[in-house]
């Protein structure tokens, strides 16, 4: 029997905060230093903070372009998924039709697909479709790969919509589509908010697909740009750190801003 007293509990919480945030702190530190030397001791933040690394990396080599590309791709993927997944989730949750279970299993099977396995076949297909070296060649496959998780989440969320609500709407003469738009969607709004956040997050972090599909420098998103940092900047750790921060800071901000609905929606999906 462990006596897990309140102070001890707080200690545990604190340890994990350190675990979570120390690497983040290190990156901020390296980005703020004017001398790009990782190997000198002090772990204290220089004051005033040095923004040179950021401005250099942002303007330099089009890092701002990478950022915009990530925004464009992730936003497009999110929109596409939000158009496809909720209706599908609704169908699986509330409609009875032939082949429902096998079809759902088919979608779920997509959860397991590892990128390196399919990338070669996918590349060949994209080449045939003329989508190589274009954003659409990244957006469509990414959205497709995120569908299994999204549909699963949407189905779970939709299952909670009271049947009475739907029946009432049908009896009022609404078509299934109208019911979906006017009655169901408002009820599952938190779930959709979470979906948006998760999809955006996953899409922002995607590495292998854009690396392989996009060749023109000005099309690349931030993960690809960040990965080539070590080749491009070599020993410039200040630059790498600044670029890394640019790569994930927006996500952190977005997440912190939306964490209320995020927690609520995500949990709704998984608890059942």
């Amino acid at each position, binding site marked *: 029997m462990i006596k897990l007293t309140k102070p001890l509990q707080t200690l545990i919480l604190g340890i994990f905060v350190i675990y979570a945030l120390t690497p983040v702190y290190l990156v901020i530190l390296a980005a703020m230093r004017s001398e790009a*030397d*990782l*190997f000198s001791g002090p772990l204290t933040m220089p004051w005033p903070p040095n923004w040179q690394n950021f401005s250099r990396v942002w303007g*330099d*080599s089009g890092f701002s372009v990478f950022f915009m590309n990530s925004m464009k791709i992730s936003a497009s993927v999110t929109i596409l998924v939000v158009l496809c997944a909720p209706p599908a989730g609704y169908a699986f949750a509330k409609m009875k039709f032939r082949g429902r279970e096998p079809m759902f299993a088919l979608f779920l099977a997509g959860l397991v697909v590892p990128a390196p396995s399919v*990338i*070669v076949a996918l*590349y*060949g297909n994209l*080449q*045939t479709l003329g989508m*190589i*070296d274009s954003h659409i060649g990244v957006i469509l496959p990414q959205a497709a790969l995120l569908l299994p998780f999204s549909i699963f989440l949407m189905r779970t969320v939709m299952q909670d919509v009271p049947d009475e609500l739907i029946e009432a709407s049908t009896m009022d003469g609404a078509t299934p589509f109208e019911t979906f738009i006017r009655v169901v969607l408002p009820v599952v709004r938190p779930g959709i908010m979470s979906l948006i956040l998760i999809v955006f997050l996953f899409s922002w972090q995607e590495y292998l697909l854009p*690396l*392989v599909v996009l*060749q*023109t*420098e000005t099309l*690349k998103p931030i993960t*690809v740009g960040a*990965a*080539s940092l*070590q*080749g*491009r*900047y*070599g*020993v*410039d*750790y200040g*630059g790498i750190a600044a670029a890394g921060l640019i790569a994930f800071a927006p996500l952190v901000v977005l997440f912190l801003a939306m964490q209320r609905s995020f927690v609520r929606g995500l949990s709704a999906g998984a608890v059942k």
Partner: protein
Amino acid sequence: MNKFAIRAITIVSTVTAVQAETVVTQWDQFSQSGISAAGPAMDELILTCAPAIDGASILRTIAPSIGIRDSYRLAVSAGKTPDLAYTWPAASVLAGYARVGALAPLDGYYEQYGWDHINDFYRGRNSYEGSLYGVPMEQDLMGVYYNKTLFAEHGISLPTTYAEFQAAAETFKSAGIVPVSFGNRGRWPATNTFSLILGLTAGKAAEEAVLFGDTPWTNDAFKLAAENFQAWANDGYFPRGFNGVGYDEANALFLSGNAAMTITGTWVLQDMIRGATDIDLGVFMLPPMVDGIEAGTMWGEGSQWQLSASASSETQDAAAAYLNCLLGDEAKQIWVQKANTVVIGTTPEELSEWGADPVVQEFFTAGLSTTENNFYDLHTTLPESVTQVLYPELQLLIGGETTADEFLNKMQTSWELAIANGERWRP
């Protein structure tokens, strides 16, 4: 419609067709910014060479440094390759692409433009079954970058024998300075270091006996080389945990004055020169490690220009004219001055004349004085399947987890498999 009109239309459309611009698509890895940025030099050269290609234009795409080898493989499998690619490695991998018909033969252009400065060594590496399929451009050498100040402070003069090198390393070790900075997390740096040690222990002839002949890897000379490499690790020449340290981190360690030497190649000259703000940088050649072995160093071409077999003949002609310009005198100077890149055939005198950085001159003067004995870069010479065994096995060897015999046995096994699969390259 009368005959005159028809004829006019025909003439106009023919002329228009002839004047339709030839576009040569080019993939390369010269990055645009950051420390090793030869990208701007490449752009400048494209402009400089525009007159030479008579109206055609070059459409350039930069691949990230992790990407071009892998991107090219995807492109071949999808059936659509860029007209020109400056990619690597040559030898077996180039031969593989030639074998499946992805590359255009270049013998005609070699003759037309007289690229005689590309000697037999380089030509061999870029051929398949007697035909040339690649145009190597840069010369890459290996050497020992060293910290002149640290050497002076510890009273060490430039090693001219292997024994002197070892003594220097021991001195630094006792003084608490890392003798040779080395970061092998990426797995490829060890293959370069091993290539150098192999050439200086077993010699070029022994290498060729294995690579092109029937001698197995498990021979005494190779065993000695493997043991020498392992000894360096055991004797503490390298920083602690080198198998987990990145290549750039190791270079940073050297450039920050914490290590006396680092053994790598001319491909990081740009990085080294620009990063050597705190140290006084010099270069020397590693002496032969066994009596009777000639002085020499590892050399190769880094990358080579490949022409796609599916490019139209106009495109191919334009690409060849463009390459000819890139190898020409005017271009050579730009390469040296703007990108610290030395084109094959550049002489040490020219380097001095063009005001190349002293370290560049030092490096190439030393390296080019031993061309007769310079030896092979393993990981751009071996078949890829063998390279993928070499990478981890070397890590295990220098990590002290396998013996030289076990290492060589593993290499011989994968070597035999590759030969059986027809993957071996011979010049």
